[in-house]
């Protein structure tokens, strides 16, 4: 331990600049933070905040050719890593300080055995270590991080590991030499929420066992609230606030922190309206003399001092805040009271003045909604297949213009698995296996599930981008399955889709205006001037400036592009909008803008939404009804209040438990029962209940008999024990199961 700092790692005034064609980008600007042994520091920030660049630069791992300069200090126990010659630095890396990276799928060498890669970390720092000894130690490490059958898995290649397993291997590699500092750069961002909970557990254990100081870099405030001791918030390449997790979450001293917390969709309550941060993140090319957050700041945006004078970190309470007016930063959103309303009103006003409003009056749980349909067709099918449904058939739930936008019965999609020499079909992946749902006009159905559960396949089936293998699909009153080419085109005009990645969903070779006009051109019957007028109108509706129609997608930020994509989807006034993870590629502050826009548009037009997402908190904010998918089946569905407030399926419960709450208060006592293992292969789903291999309550019956999706307490649940698992009592009683060894 360095006597002069008392910290395991001290970043001092670190500045990183890149040369880009557009100019010099200062990605990190005088960043300083400390982390002590045994402590976890969360470094939080959005895209481009400089949080990863700082860490990579400190360890000399920036490999891009356009690094212009790295200045400052990175003191590891008194030694400045930035001043070390390359060979000496390399000797420190992996031994005293180790790093865990974001994408476990690419972090391992694809042509080397996983075990050998871990053993290499041991052997480069200990030349005396023999190969058998390194192997034995590696197997121990793999066991410590929860890789099942570690001796056998030593010889596997990375492609034979799941994402979660790869990340465990990377963690094993990082802790191999008991480093004093562990730096984890977005270690769970690429993973599913249930796997994220496992990996965070492993990380915690690794830090505890090695006694290492941990730097956890993340964009996810929930992860920080759950795991960090102290917190450091970055914005525009600078540290804007730091302090203990409890202090910062309870009383943010920087307006950015406060705004970020306010814009977060929450799992526990449904906000009437999210409070986004207006505007967009700073352009790091133009060096601003003042505070980088000033243009978006409710406190400082018209104060001259904020625009001209750079705020230096000042001690406020127990932490530091780089704000001229730290005491004016709004309190966090959950603190009930006038402060929150003020913040909401301010942000609302900045967002274009739309009032705070609910979406539909009837979104609170109404048990009768999940009763039989008027025509009686909602009962389970005679052959025992589930008729899942979500859609609230109650007539009074439907808006005035009425009608059912989407009616899906027993939809299936089988993808053939081809193996062998002649690529013969040896089996089928049941991507979607007997799903039924309904969405009335003007309502939103949230479809949640982890990757590979079939939710995106289902969404694509509704445009017949994926050919259904069976079932009845009625979209806006048209039979989708039997539609011929011409009918299909007409249906596709009534249903539009917004895709996940706004960087990929717009044709980069067309101007944004032409992108929006595409559906009009394809539908035919619109003259050029008519299209132009319509495009301008659409731009206005989604909050884009009409003079930007001739620009190209590359010139827009993610949030703006998603607005363009939404405008395109609205061009033909569809009755149903399929939203496939529409905000998961966006930063939190921008995410709230887009969610509010979607809410406003639905309110105006009475469109129905199918909102597909892996993010339970986001779905909480937008959905009237929620359906939870697992391995191609709906395991639970019903009104949002019922699913979130009274989940009856162990999977739904586990998912909800896995989501880290953006609130450190009471985290010590919070009961978490993370799911073990990975999702089984959909090509070979478990017999009986598909969830049983990961279910803490599974019994013999679950393997033999598939549970029917049935009415349980105002919703639909497919679990044998749905009636007996009640409320919190059952949740607390659930045994905490670790890894499923398979």
């Amino acid at each position, binding site marked *: 331990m360095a006597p002069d700092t008392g910290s395991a790692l001290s970043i001092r005034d670190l500045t990183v600049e890149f040369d880009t064609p557009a100019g010099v980008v200062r990605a990190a600007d005088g960043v300083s933070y400390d982390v002590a042994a045994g402590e976890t520091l969360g470094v939080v920030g959005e895209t481009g905040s400089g949080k990863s660049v700082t860490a990579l630069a400190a360890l000399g791992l920036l490999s891009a050719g356009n690094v212009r300069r790295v200045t400052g200090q990175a003191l590891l126990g008194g030694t400045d890593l930035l001043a070390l010659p390359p060979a000496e630095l*390399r000797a420190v890396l992996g031994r005293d300080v180790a790093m865990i990276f974001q994408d476990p799928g690419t972090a391992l060498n694809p042509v080397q055995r996983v075990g050998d890669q871990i053993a290499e970390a041991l052997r480069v*720092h200990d030349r005396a270590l023999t190969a058998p000894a390194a192997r034995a130690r590696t197997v121990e490490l793999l066991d410590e991080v929860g890789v099942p059958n570690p001796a056998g898995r030593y010889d596997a290649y990375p492609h034979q590991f799941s994402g979660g397993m790869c990340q465990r291997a990377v963690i094993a*590699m990082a802790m191999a030499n008991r480093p004093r500092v562990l730096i984890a750069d977005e270690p769970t961002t690429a993973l599913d929420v249930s796997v994220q909970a496992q990996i965070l557990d492993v990380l915690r254990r690794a830090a505890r066992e090695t006694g290492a100081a941990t730097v956890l870099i993340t964009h996810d405030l929930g992860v920080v609230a759950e795991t960090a001791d102290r917190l450091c918030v970055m914005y525009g390449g600078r540290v804007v606030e730091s302090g203990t997790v409890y202090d910062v979450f309870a009383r943010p001293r920087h307006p950015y922190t406060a705004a970020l917390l306010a814009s977060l969709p929450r799992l526990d309550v449904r906000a009437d309206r999210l409070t986004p941060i207006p505007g967009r993140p700073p352009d790091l090319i133009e060096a601003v003399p003042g505070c980088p957050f000033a243009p978006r700041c409710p406190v400082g945006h018209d104060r001259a001092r904020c625009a001209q004078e750079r705020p230096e970190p000042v001690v406020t309470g127990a932490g530091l805040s780089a704000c001229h007016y730290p005491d004016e930063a709004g309190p966090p959103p959950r603190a009930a009271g006038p402060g929150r309303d003020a913040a909401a009103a301010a942000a609302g006003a900045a967002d274009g003045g739309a009032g705070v409003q609910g979406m539909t009056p009837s979104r609170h749980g109404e048990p009768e909604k999940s009763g039989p349909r008027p025509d009686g067709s909602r009962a389970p099918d005679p052959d025992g297949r589930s008729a899942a449904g979500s859609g609230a058939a109650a007539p009074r739930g439907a808006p005035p213009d009425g009608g059912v936008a989407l009616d899906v019965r027993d939809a299936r999609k089988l993808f053939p698995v081809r193996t062998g020499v002649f690529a013969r079909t040896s089996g089928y992946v049941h991507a979607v296996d007997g799903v039924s749902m309904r969405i009335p006009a003007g309502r939103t159905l949230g479809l949640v599930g982890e990757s590979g559960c079939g939710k995106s396949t289902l969404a694509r089936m509704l445009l017949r981008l994926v050919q259904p293998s069976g079932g009845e699909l009625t979209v806006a009153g048209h039979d989708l399955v039997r539609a011929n080419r011409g009918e299909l085109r007409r249906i596709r005009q009534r249903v539009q889709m917004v895709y996940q990645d706004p960087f990929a969903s717009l044709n980069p070779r067309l101007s944004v205006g032409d992108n929006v006009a595409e559906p009009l051109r394809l539908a035919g019957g619109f003259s050029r001037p008519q299209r132009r007028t319509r495009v301008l109108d659409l731009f206005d509706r989604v909050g884009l400036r009409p003079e930007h129609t001739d620009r190209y997608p590359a010139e827009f930020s993610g949030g703006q592009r998603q607005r363009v994509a939404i405008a395109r989807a609205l061009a033909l006034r569809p009755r149903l909008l399929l939203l496939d993870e529409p905000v998961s590629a966006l930063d939190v502050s921008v995410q709230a803008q887009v969610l509010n826009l979607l809410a406003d548009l639905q309110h105006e037009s009475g469109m129905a939404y199918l909102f597909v997402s892996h993010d339970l908190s986001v779905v909480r904010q937008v959905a009237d009804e929620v359906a939870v998918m697992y391995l191609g089946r709906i395991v639970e569905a019903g009104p949002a209040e019922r699913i979130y407030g009274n989940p009856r399926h162990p999977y739904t419960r586990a998912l909800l438990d896995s989501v880290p709450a953006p609130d450190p208060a009471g985290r010590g006592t919070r009961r978490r029962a993370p799911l073990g293992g990975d999702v089984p292969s959909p090509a070979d789903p478990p017999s009986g209940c598909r969830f049983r291999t990961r279910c803490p309550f599974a019994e013999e019956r679950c393997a033999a008999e598939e549970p029917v999706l049935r009415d349980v307490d105002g919703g639909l649940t497919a679990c044998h024990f749905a009636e007996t698992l009640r409320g919190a009592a059952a949740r607390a009683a659930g045994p905490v199961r670790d890894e499923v060894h398979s």
Partner: protein
Amino acid sequence: MYAYVIRRLLQFALVLFLGSLAVWAFVFALPGDPATVLTGPDAAPAELAATRERLGLDDSVVQQYVTWLGNAVTGDLGDSYFSAETVRSTLLDTVPATGQLAAFAMALTLLIGIPVGTVVALRPRSWAGRAADAYLTAGLAIPAFWLGLLLIIVFAVQLGALPAASDYVPLFSDPAGAVRATILPALAVAVHASSVLARFLAASLHEVMGRDYIRTARAKGVPERYVVRRHALRNAALPTVTVVGIQLGGFLGGTVVIEAVFNYPGLGRLLYTSIGERDYAVVQGGVLFVVAAFLCLNLLVDVLYAYLDPRIRLA
């Protein structure tokens, strides 16, 4: 992996079959049928008919192909139109010469290409990197046949150190003589080929060096030279294997101009002269050989690749 290899094998068989069909059909695309070519324009009708009979041109098309293919499979590619020899023996005279030239050229290509490519990718700003880059820029621009001509001018005409026209001297009977006879054409081929290889390897290596797993290796403290050796080169070499295979295939059938320039008695020169003499039986047999050799090499390379890449091997 077995399924992969067998699938590749079937594709190989299919393409080889298509290739044989194309090679066989090529003769029919020529102006005038083979009998006319063989007997000359002024031949008597009886002579023409006899020739047609001998060549089996009066059989049905399918019958002709089946007969031809059956013979080809057993190694009987027919008789040369003009010389007294069979096509098979004519080819067998030239294939070893071309094989030796290809082997020499490939050895030089690897010897030059791998270090040049590695230096260009890893040390672009050092003097060695700049020199290597200059070499590959020049090597890519200078056509092999012109370089061959320049080499002849310098080493044969001006210095008189090496022969201007290369004979085939088998390596095993006279190693020194074989090197003397083959070095110039091999060098002419290898300068260009090694530049192509070096650029490909450099691009591949450069890309690999930016991958996440390289950063992982650095982060665990692996010294840079081992990062390159254990992690980067292995991954960059994989796609390069394919390139080397294609190049070797090209050396076997595509050194026509070089062999003509050096008057080297190989397959390329044989094909060229046969086309000039309209000895299409030889052209047919030679091209069939080249196609078969190229496809075999490709198959080998694909199998090797599958073996080297665990993602395919263990699939």
